[in-house]
């Protein structure tokens, strides 16, 4: 039982990795690994059939995608024949799209009836592939509700920028120019995020020991309010580089976003222990300490901050205001008044 669980975990990790490699354009690497683990020729396939249950549908589907990208359509089809389920069906649809067989692709990906609804709504490509077939067939308007659902459910998917662009196009066709502009702005912003995301992942693959790419990756996740993913990346980063101060600081931000205030205090404190010059971490910690009425500690942090030249302007300017609150909490009315006056004066500047 334990062995099976280990195998299942390994498979899940491998599928995730293959998906990432494919998204980063490294199909050949996936294909080479797939040849080893899945077998390409019939004899090997027969041998592997005994352990077929190990070759999950997800692997076969990803391997087929890699094969198709290498122009090996027959091999892709052979692999798909060995599996079943949503991943396999959707990969078949992708192959059909390669061959301009739009109607067959739609039959595989849509439930019967109107309005069009995907057979596999739990997967991003379950929405995107039928939308793509409809768009190519000149029926973008029919795809519109599904595209909207896709960008709502999977806003960070690698297909999201394209889906947003298609929505802009659908709005133009419908004469909604304002709507088109808004969709396009979202598409461009999504594409920028995605390009950076892919660049960071590539950098992380290239320099697995270096913390910077992962730090960038975590920041990107936080930018789109995906603190859990950010935390995952940061934990991985800090395992590799436990003394990387900016990692601890960003971890504090991620934990705060997740509501784990104790955790974030602890991460910021760790960061400040390693590098007392991390002003943003100190500021964040102070604000949190005020919320917890830990006035003395907050005062200590804020007193350090207001002495800085950077505290004369945003974003550290509010350190004066918070210092006033901390001093008030400690009963130092005069000190609080003075800090508040300084804040107001600097604000006017």
């Amino acid at each position, binding site marked *: 039982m334990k062995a099976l669980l280990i195998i299942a975990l390994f498979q899940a990790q491998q599928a995730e990795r293959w998906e990432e490699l494919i998204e980063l354009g490294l199909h050949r690497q996936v294909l080479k690994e797939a040849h080893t683990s899945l077998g390409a020729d019939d004899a090997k396939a027969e041998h592997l059939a005994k352990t077929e249950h190990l070759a999950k549908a997800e692997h076969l589907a990803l391997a087929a995608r890699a094969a198709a990208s290498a122009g090996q359509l027959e091999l892709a089809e052979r692999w798909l024949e060995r599996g079943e389920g949503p991943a396999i069906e959707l990969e078949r649809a992708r192959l059909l799209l390669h061959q301009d067989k739009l109607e067959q692709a739609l039959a595989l990906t849509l439930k019967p009836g109107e309005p069009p609804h995907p057979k596999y709504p739990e997967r991003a490509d379950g929405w995107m592939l039928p939308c793509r077939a409809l768009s190519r067939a000149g029926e973008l308007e029919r795809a519109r509700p599904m595209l909207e659902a896709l960008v709502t459910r999977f806003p960070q998917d690698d297909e999201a920028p394209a889906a947003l662009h298609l929505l802009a196009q659908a709005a*133009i066709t419908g004469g909604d*120019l304002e709507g088109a502009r808004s969709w396009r702005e979202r598409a461009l912003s999504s594409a920028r995020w995605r390009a950076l995301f892919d660049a960071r992942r590539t950098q992380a693959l290239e320099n697995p020991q270096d913390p910077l790419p992962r730090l960038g990756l975590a920041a990107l996740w936080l930018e789109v309010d995906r603190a859990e993913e950010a935390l995952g990346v940061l934990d991985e980063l800090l395992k590799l580089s436990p003394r990387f101060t900016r990692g601890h600081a960003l971890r504090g931000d991620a934990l705060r976003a997740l509501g784990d205030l104790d955790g974030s205090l602890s991460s910021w404190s760790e960061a400040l222990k390693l590098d007392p010059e991390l002003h943003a971490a100190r500021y964040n910690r102070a604000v949190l300490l005020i919320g917890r009425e830990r006035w003395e500690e907050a005062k200590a942090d804020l007193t350090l901050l207001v002495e800085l030249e950077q505290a004369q302007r945003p974003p550290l300017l509010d350190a004066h205001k918070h210092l006033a609150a901390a001093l008030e909490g400690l009963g130092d009315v005069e000190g609080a008044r003075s800090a508040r006056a300084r804040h107001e004066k600097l604000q006017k500047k």
Partner: protein
Amino acid sequence: MLKLSKEITGPKRYRRPLLVPMVRRMGRRILVALPNRVNALALFLALGGVLGASCGQKTPPGAPQEGLPDEAAKRGLVHVNRSGGSKKRAILEAGGAGVALLDLHSDGDLDAIFAQGCDSLEELLAGDGADLAVFASDDGQFTELQGPKLSGWWTGLATGDLDSDGDVDLVAAGFGSLRVLLQAEDGALLPGPELLPEGARLSDSGAPAWCTSVATLDVDRDGNLDLYVGCYLDLDPRAIPAGALGEGALAVPCRWKGLDVYCGPRGLRAQPDLLLMGNGDGSFRDESQRLSGEGAGYTLSVLPFDADGDGDTDIAVACDSSPNRLWISDGSGSFSDFGYEAGFALSMDGQAEAGMGLAAGDVDRDGRLDLAVTNFSEEPTRLLLGAPVGFTDATYRYGLNAESRPLLSWGAHLIDLDGDGFLELFTTNGHVYPEADEELTGTSYHQPDTLWRLDPSTRCERFEARAASSILSLPRGTRGSAVGDVDGDGRPELLISAIDGAAILGMNRLGQENKRLCVRLLGPQSPTERAPRTPRDGTGARCVLVLGEGAQQHALLSESFTAEGYQSASSPWLHFGLGERASYTALRITWPSGQTEELGSGSANRRLWVREGEGIIREEAL
């Protein structure tokens, strides 16, 4: 009875470049005689055209087996392109060069000019750049002439009468250089001063302007040819990025499918295009501010045409790895980018593709110009049909996706090579990365050129190369291409530049039984007092050839521009295929001046010279 809209004949109105006016204008396109678009579509659907399989591979009935034999060497076109090393370590080495077909000496023979690169960037920086290769034709036999003694890495060529003296001139665009070469009385091309400003030249430090494609057009209709100059990206020849972009842990490797390749275009800064207004004497002034669009794309090809049928010239721009642009003129020569609105910027998958080359033609014979856009491998060559508003993407309806996906295509032409009245799509092909020949890439470095028949009632049909001598048979890496009747038989030939290889001349032996008409449109010899005027060489004139009577009546549309394909200039002659018809019903010309001329019926297999205000000034049998 033929009915033509008067919309195109009225005086030019100056408009604000807003979408709504554009949409209205597109709805008021020229109404040319039918076939009825709806009926054609219905037939298309009935034949299973919408959701079927890919193109068939057929040799059309009657097509001689020799098809398009390469006779470059046999006819004296002995030219070998140089484009850096075989490994292609810099992006400059991968783009190859353009070609031009033009009539030097005004003797009626089409001469050939090849842009040329260098063996290495070091050679270029050492001042030992390449010259253009010039070949003069005498009835289709070529002799190499001395070049104009330029020195550079030349990419794009454009042609037109830039000084309004009645003969054709040349523009050579390159890496860090842009030169006008005016034709002297003896036919020699005399280089003018450098058009790029200081700071953008190769001799300056840093990345020079990299001019890829140039188009000649008259954007403000003053009768003087202007230049749209497509620019690519920042590449410092003294510090070519190698292996990766960026530094340290944040470097991003330059890879394609896991293979190490040259860097770019992604990650390198795109350069804005230029709009140079002609003074009518071969000199130009920079008025790029007339282009009001956001950002810059990696421009590779430029195609002037009247996108919205309102009588002025618009510009399609194919951009590599960035959205294509469609500059719509407001009539006064200022442009706004309507690429997104027109359905041109992105693919039907909602993605920016790597646009390489462009062609225009009326594929479905509905009186609107359609576009072909070539792309990178795994991206189909797109076919966009002109619609009442913008374009309708017909790539999948014609089945072009499955066939063209493995190809990386460059030059494109929508031209009736076999003279049957329907346009074909020709593309030059070849991958940018020599690494494409590694295993598991799904493509190859050398690829055969392709020709598809685009009869609108069926799926496209690929012409099969049956003879080894056909230009469609041998896998090569071809880039720039130009169309023109080299041997004077009325059938247009294809002149092609192969990267690091010998020039190719595909002689047109297709559709020998079909009738044809060749038309040369010319502006007035002396400029009219007031604008709008037609340029002396007729650039921008639009010609509608009406064929048949009654229900059978239909029209073929073509415009007189030389810039098309990839970095190249075709002959200004318009080539119409009449199929079995021995005559045409009418010829209607709309001049850039706003004047229209309707000429009566005439015989097929003729070559006509038509001058604005004078009608047919010369005519001869093919």
